[in-house]
Structure formats: C-alpha cells, structure tokens
C-alpha cells in the first residue's frame, strides 16, 4: 500500500507537473506535512515542475528603500513601523543614491530593480520622488523598474502605468485568516483591493509574504492557495528575520526543513509563477539550504542587500547559479 506521502506526491505530480495546475489546499497541506525522509522527493518534484513550466532561467532582482522607517502601519514583523521601538530611523534616499542603487543592481546582471517605500500608501511627495527617480534611472541604467509603495488609489495605479513601472509588489504577507494577528492598522482585503487594481491595469503583479509569523501549517497552505487564486506573476517568499523592538523580535526562526517544505509546497501550488527567494533566506537556510531551494522550486533571487538588512554577496549567488547551470534571465527575454 502506498504511504500517505507517496500519494501526496503522486497527486502533486499528476496535477502540478502534468497539467501545470496548482494543488488544492488539502494537497498543499499534505506536502507541508511530509516527513523529513520525503523532503528530497518533494523538492525534486517541485524542481521538475519549475523546469517544465518556467524553464531553467533564474530572474535576478535588486531592491532599495527610497523611504525607510517611520511607517504608520503596525505589521508585527517590520522594523520600519514607526509604532515600535525599533532602532530604524526614518530616512529618504536622494535621486543620485537611487540611481547608484540601480547601477549596482544592473552590474550584477539583474533585470529587475524594485523601488520600495515604507508607507501605508504613496503621498504627493513620494510620487514626485518616484517620477524623478524613474526618469533619472532610465537616463543612465538599462533595467526594468518595479515599485512597492503600499496601497494605491486608482489614480496612482494609472500614474505608475504611465511611468512605465512594469511590475508592482504588494505582499498579502500571510493567510487571510491569520492576518489580523499580524497587522491591525489595515486589512488583508484592503491589500487585495490594491492588487486587483494593479492586475486590471496590466502591470505585472508581485505578491508574496513572510513565513514564520506564528501561522499554522494549515494557514501556510491557505496562504499558498490564496496567492494562487490571485495568479501573480511573481511570489517573493520571505522567512521571518526577527527584528529587535518589533512584536516578533523574539520569535523563533523557521526550521530549515520546514522552510524547504514550504518552498516545494508553494511551487506545487503555483507551478508557473516566478518564485523568488527574498528576505531571511540567509539566516534561515544558510548556503546549503539556499542551494536546496534553488533545486526545489525557486527560480528567482533578490541579490545584494535587502531594505534594512544585508544579504550575502551577489557574487556568491551568481557563482551558485553558474554551478547549478541555471542561466540568469536576460533583459531581452523580459521585454
């Protein structure tokens, strides 16, 4: 008689690998619950799904914070909330530094540069900074420009489209049922409203979240299928890096095996999506785990530093991709 895990992976193979359709919630949960012995097989299947439906290329992205800290929201994992005793101070990046950040990103071979602001949503000052920043980057650096500026109005969506922002990031962060435990100053549905407008505008949708906020495995599965229902072009997967002074500052790291199970499960829920390693991978998975994830469903990375923390060296990531014979997606392939 096949074991439960055999049948979980057989179901996953029949659906995700053969048809490119994401798993249903109970099947995602079954993958998240696989015993450690089955983890290599789950990662292998997720890798096959990624290779079949996305191909071997890896999309490389750099990010920078144009406005750091002082955010009025209370996302419990975030060092940039102005409501906690985090040591992160509010600061704006000027245009020359923004262009320098884009140049540093392009120098790694990255095709994506995402401009991020710690805000509930953009005000006139931020939109003006973005307009000037985008124009200055375009004049000097050849790279796709994405943005992550919080919740948007319809007029702001239209303005971003007019600016040529090709992808918008807005993370749902966690399962809808768990969100109120993590954020009280706005709702999951408010976030979803922005995502719906972004999708309808024709911009690419980038939407992911953070694992390790205290959610259950059931809620992790719920989150994966909620993301799948949105059908985002990209899903960035963060793992909690507990930040001093935040409500989750003393929380435990995600166990690396659970992190890898989640990578496989999210790939099987989202067979055709760009699944990106984002914050917390270094501290959660280390070098070996980073490699395992790239062989287990991940097909995109943020290289270099994050918004308020540092990442491992881009050279190490690029050498790893080279070693794995995974070509970096070229700019021409994205236009």
């Amino acid at each position, binding site marked *: 008689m096949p074991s439960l895990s055999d049948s979980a992976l057989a179901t996953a193979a029949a659906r995700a690998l053969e048809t490119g359709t994401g798993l249903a919630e109970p099947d995602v949960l079954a993958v998240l619950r696989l015993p450690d012995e089955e983890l290599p097989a789950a990662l292998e299947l997720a890798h096959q799904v990624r290779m079949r439906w996305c191909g071997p290329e890896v999309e490389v992205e750099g990010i920078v914070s144009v406005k750091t800290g002082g955010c009025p929201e209370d996302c419990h994992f975030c060092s940039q909330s102005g409501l906690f005793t985090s*040591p992160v*101070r509010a600061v704006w990046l000027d245009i020359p530094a923004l262009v320098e950040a884009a140049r540093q990103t392009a120098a790694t071979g990255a095709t994506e540069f995402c401009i991020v602001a710690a805000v509930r949503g953009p005000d006139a000052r931020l939109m003006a900074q973005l307009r000037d920043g985008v124009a200055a980057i375009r004049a000097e650096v050849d790279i796709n420009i994405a943005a992550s500026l919080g919740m948007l109005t319809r007029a702001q969506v239209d303005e971003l489209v007019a600016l040529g922002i090709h992808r918008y990031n807005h993370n749902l962060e966690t399962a809808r049922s768990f969100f109120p435990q993590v954020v009280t100053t706005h709702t999951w549905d408010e976030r979803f409203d922005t995502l719906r407008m972004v999708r309808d505008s024709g911009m690419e949708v980038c939407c992911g979240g953070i694992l390790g906020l205290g959610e259950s495995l059931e809620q992790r599965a719920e989150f994966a299928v909620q993301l799948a229902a949105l059908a985002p072009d990209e899903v960035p997967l963060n793992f909690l890096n507990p930040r001093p002074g935040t409500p989750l500052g003393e929380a435990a790291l995600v166990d690396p095996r659970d992190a890898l199970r989640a990578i496989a499960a999210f790939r099987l829920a989202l067979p055709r999506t760009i699944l990106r390693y984002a914050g917390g991978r270094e501290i959660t998975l280390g070098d070996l785990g980073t490699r395992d994830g790239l062989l287990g469903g991940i097909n995109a990375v943020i290289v270099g530093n994050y918004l308020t*923390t540092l990442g*491992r060296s*881009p050279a190490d990531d690029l050498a790893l991709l080279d070693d794995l014979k995974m070509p970096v997606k070229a700019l021409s392939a994205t236009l």
Partner: protein
Amino acid sequence: MTGPGSRDLGRLHPLEGAQASKIAAFCDRCGGDLTAADLTAADLTGADPHSACRSARALEPPRFCPYCRRRMKVQVLPAGWRAVCTEHGERSS
C-alpha cells in the same frame, strides 16, 4: 561589497573600541554599554552581552553611533550601507 567593512567598529572587540583614541563606548547594534565596568562584569560571569549583536552584524548595518549611542540615519543600498550620526558624521561599508 555587502558585508561590514573595515570602518565597521561593531566588529571590533569592545575593548579595542574602548581603547581607541575616539572611544567607542556603545554597541552599534543595540546601543548597549561597552564600558570597562560592563566588560569586567561580563568576564566574571563568562557572558559577553554583545556576542549575539556582533554575529548579527554580519547581516545588518549598524544602528547606533558607537560614540554617543544616538540612533543613526541608515541607508542600505544593494551593495553597501551608509550610516550618519548628527554629532559624529558618516560611516559606510
């Protein structure tokens, strides 16, 4: 370069910082004291109150000025960081 650089006092042993001509009296990650009294107490108990801070700093920029404990304005760029104390000026990776 993404790691802390040579100007990164947070990676020095606290005593080295404390004995430098410009005295680094505070941990640049948590803002806690690096005074001789504290370190003596730490030596007696065998505990270094800032060892976790020092290892965390491999993947974090400094947040507090090591000379005056002010929170610094810190900007993280894809290939480095810059930190400014209103009193003691700028450090970068």
